[in-house]
């Protein structure tokens, strides 16, 4: 879904509510949520007119206040469910998004931030449930400013694959993963390798969840993984060569290198071998471990190395 088209659609619908929003509670709420989405866009061309924003006090009175506890109850219930994530779970997350927008419009910034933190916290506990919502999260993040209260929820969902990986890592790697900040990667070659990994992982999820298997969250039932093809590790080898050339000479004195030992142990493994840990991970999980380890390595790079261009 194109982010600009999503916002254009919101503007069009907001304009269509002009006649009814001052009297109908559902239309008043809808108008407020659409206006909030448009106001949070980094592009001023999407912002609603003053004619609309001047009506906010009346609309708030007609619509009634947001209900943060109800929002949280629904999300918690749906995260615990096994029904399709594009159903009530995504609906609940959009409702949270809407509630945050209306709270901001009504100058309840603190309440909005607390709700945002609680929702993001809940979501982070169930990455397997939000895995299929990555595309919507990507789109939504392109329609808001980075510092928007809604961004943290969708960012948590966007990182669900990495979160699942961190949860699956052996204990010693988890300690490293726990040190990872949310530093964005400025290295184009890492972004390219990560994109290829994401596609491989998405292909695995696609194949796995299409199979007629029991409805269990990803990461729990991997019995059918043996029948699926292994994604190529060529992009990982490329990424490893880059990391090795950039990290080793620059950081041996300044940073710990246990992460490079992880990298080395993965890429020196043959494609037919499994991660040399107990219990062994399937190859697709080993590739995800590589991605997570890349993130660890990047965070540990000295600051000047983080802006290196692709060579």
């Amino acid at each position: 879904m194109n982010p600009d088209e999503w916002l254009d659609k919101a503007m069009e619908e907001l304009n269509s509510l002009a006649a009814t929003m001052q009297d109908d509670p559902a239309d008043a709420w809808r108008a407020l949520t659409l206006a909030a989405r448009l106001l949070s866009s980094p592009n001023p061309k999407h912002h609603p007119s003053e004619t609309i924003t001047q009506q906010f006090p009346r609309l708030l009175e007609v619509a009634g206040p947001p209900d943060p506890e109800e929002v949280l109850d629904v999300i918690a219930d749906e995260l615990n469910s096994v029904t399709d994530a594009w159903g009530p779970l995504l609906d609940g997350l959009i409702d949270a998004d809407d509630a945050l927008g209306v709270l901001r419009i009504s100058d309840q910034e603190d309440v909005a931030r607390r709700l945002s933190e609680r929702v993001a916290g809940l979501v982070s506990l169930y990455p397997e449930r939000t895995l299929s919502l990555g595309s919507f999260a990507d789109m939504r993040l392109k329609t808001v400013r980075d510092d928007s209260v809604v961004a943290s929820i969708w960012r948590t969902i966007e990182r669900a694959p990495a979160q699942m990986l961190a949860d699956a890592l052996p204990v010693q790697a988890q300690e490293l993963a726990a040190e990872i900040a949310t530093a964005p990667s400025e290295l184009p070659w890492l972004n390219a390798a990560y994109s290829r990994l994401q596609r491989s992982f998405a292909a695995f999820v696609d194949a796995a969840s299409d199979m007629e298997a029991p409805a269990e969250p990803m990461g729990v039932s991997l019995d059918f993984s043996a029948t699926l093809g292994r994604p190529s590790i060529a992009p990982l080898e490329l990424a490893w060569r880059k990391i090795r050339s950039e990290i080793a000479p620059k950081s041996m004195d300044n940073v710990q290198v246990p992460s490079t030992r992880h990298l080395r142990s993965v890429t020196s493994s043959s494609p037919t071998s499994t991660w040399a840990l107990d219990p062994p991970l399937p190859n697709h999980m080993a590739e995800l471990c590589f991605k997570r380890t890349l993130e660890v390595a990047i965070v540990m790079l000295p600051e000047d190395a983080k802006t290196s261009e692709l060579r």
Partner: protein
Amino acid sequence: MNAPWKAKQILDMQGERSRFAHVVKHFYSKKERWQQVTLHHGDPRSLAKKAGCINRELRHYDLVTPDCREHVLGDHDQAYAPAYREALSQAEHEDRVGKEEDERNQSKHAWIFVGDNGVSVIVREVRRPHGKPKRPEVKSAYRVWPRKSQGQTPEDFFKAAVRKLRDKTSYEGDV
């Protein structure tokens, strides 16, 4: 937007466990008010209790009695499935269909149908093992409920469902 299949080509929800879970979670939900849609006489949950279903066990297919299980699965066949099938037909007729769009993964999409009856149906193509062809299947059917401070009429449920369809997909139709 037209789905790649006709409504009649879409298979009902498959598997007893899935049917059981969806009936208990959605069809028996007070918030979703399925009595507006089906010809069920009386509260479905109360009727399930009379059939031997105990509240705290209702979430677990394996814990309920055979009588309870049979009753719940019967509700799928006699009430829940006809309602979602009707929604599929209505949505097809009105072209009230949207698609999950993921540029990274073109082969995997959810299609969402919204019926005049306010039932939202999620359909996915399910791959079968051993090279058998994919087939579209109902994966979920539920009713989007309006906020507490809003009306709870069938029209309010319908409006809430269409608004969610617009939010989640590229569907542009009016409410």
